[in-house]
């Protein structure tokens, strides 16, 4: 299935990134790249540094060493707001939605950066502001339709079951029309049916919008089915990189997952 997808040029690359908290070295000289339109997975056992890697890409952590290249711009590090501005959107392992707000409002916040009207126009609900709001509402409605969440449009997110919240969070990230979408364990804590749905949505998003997706996941089976290429981390180091089949056959990956002593 993944062969049918059209991977393009390198859009994001990570060069020799190292990150340490005090004495703990979370990432050690990790390098890899992500091509446009591909689904790129970062996997590894618990504590391998997957989340740290994602947080570096998203500007939450600032690496001590190394560079990140997005399109033609190079960064030593960035902050979250800047990352969002550059078109990096993400979801969180333990869901960071606005629980008191409706699904619709949550998705609308995803488009906040795209809104240009000033404060006064907005407050007075002037023509341009109204047009802008409607235009963004339309974009959001398309995502609602795409993710099949019409029936909960007006429901406060806090009242939804876990699986649906995950879907809403994916929707909010999509609403930003990201260049790169980071998914932090999108399948964590889901039952089989929800996992299958989520897989379908990730593939659909990739196919329909052509979104480049970087996902980290603990569950190896799921990842192998939907990814084009896989990076394997273990103890903060990259131990393998390649197609799912290559990675699966790699001895050090097998060792890492089986917990062979280092």
């Amino acid at each position, binding site marked *: 299935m993944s062969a049918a997808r059209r991977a393009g040029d390198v859009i994001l690359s990570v060069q020799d990134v190292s990150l340490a908290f005090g004495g703990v070295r979370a990432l050690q000289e990790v390098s890899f790249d992500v091509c446009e339109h591909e689904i790129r997975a970062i996997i590894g056992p618990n504590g391998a540094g997957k989340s740290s890697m994602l947080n570096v890409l998203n500007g939450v952590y600032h690496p001590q060493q190394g560079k990140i290249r997005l399109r033609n711009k190079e960064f030593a590090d960035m902050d979250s707001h800047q990352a*969002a501005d550059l078109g990096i959107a993400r979801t*969180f392992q333990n869901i960071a939605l606005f*629980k008191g707000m409706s699904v619709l409002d949550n998705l609308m916040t995803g488009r906040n*950066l795209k809104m240009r009207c000033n404060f006064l126009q*907005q407050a007075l609900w002037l023509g341009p502001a109204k047009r802008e709001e409607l235009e963004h509402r339309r974009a959001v409605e398309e995502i609602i339709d795409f993710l099949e969440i019409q029936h909960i449009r007006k429901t406060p997110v806090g009242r939804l079951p876990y699986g649906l919240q995950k879907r809403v969070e994916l929707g909010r990230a999509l609403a930003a029309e990201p260049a790169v979408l980071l998914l932090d364990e999108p399948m964590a804590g889901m039952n089989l049916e929800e996992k299958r749905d989520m897989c379908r949505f990730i593939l659909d998003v990739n196919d329909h919008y052509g979104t480049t997706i970087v996902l980290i996941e603990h569950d190896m089976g799921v990842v192998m089915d939907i990814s084009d290429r896989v990076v394997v981390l273990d103890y903060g180091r990259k131990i393998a990189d390649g197609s799912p089949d290559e990675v699966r056959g790699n001895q050090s990956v097998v060792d890492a997952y089986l917990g062979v002593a280092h």
Partner: protein
Amino acid sequence: MSEVIFFFEVLAGGLLAGVMYALVALGFVLIYKASGVFNFAQGAMVFFAALTFVSLTERGWNFWLALVVTLAVMVLLGIVTERVVLRPLVNQPQITLFMATIGLTFVLEGLSQLIWGSQPHGLELGIPDVPMEWLSQKWNVNISQFDLFSAFVAGGLVAVLAVFFHRTRIGRALRAVADDHQAALAVGIPLQHIWAIVWAVAGFVALVAGLLWGVRNGVQFALTFVALKALPVLILGGFESIMGAIVGGLIIGASEKLAEVYVGPFVGGGIESWFAYVVALVFLLFRPEGLFGEKIIDRV
């Protein structure tokens, strides 16, 4: 018959006083909603705003010019507060932020008296604080013209804020920030920006409250204590709800006036100064999240 009329007169007086409490409570709610901080300095901001305005007019400034300039000062104050006090303290425990606002209180109080002096001022907005004639003649009900005016101002303010919160991108961002900081950052909502706006809006609300209270009680240091009156209102209405601040204010205002008149004689009077707290305490026992407070719904 006159009994009934008297009752309604007391009730109306109480409700209108309640509007004034609500106005102050509103300032607290705004900041608490957006940043989760109980802004101890709100009272000082009210005082500072009123004092600045009254001092400017006393120096012969035109009413509107003074108003605009004071508003600008309050907005600036909000922005500076965010920059100097809050930003360095980002990700600190709430108690630290709370302490910081206490510090801010003293700075503001000191600053205002340093600049404008410490003597009390009278304030006149051109609306007389006298009973409305046709009401008293026709129904024999005494309701102050000024009270009614304040009620309208407060109502207008709430309407504006409601539109602001629900209609605009900034309002939505504000609610988002109030809901979850991390998530707000992830979708690219600039926290600092939003906080500055909230503090500026709180400054604006403080100005309105300061002017109305200033007319009633004179602009003096005691104005900072109106913040204490807002506390029971907040407990009643919930710290996060604009609607709650209004309804809470009305309930507190009405109940304390009624208590003063109908219960006061039996316990020797002076009820008005503490009755609000009793109401708030009783309420705490039954509904700790407040009348309109957001019940946190968590699903696992």
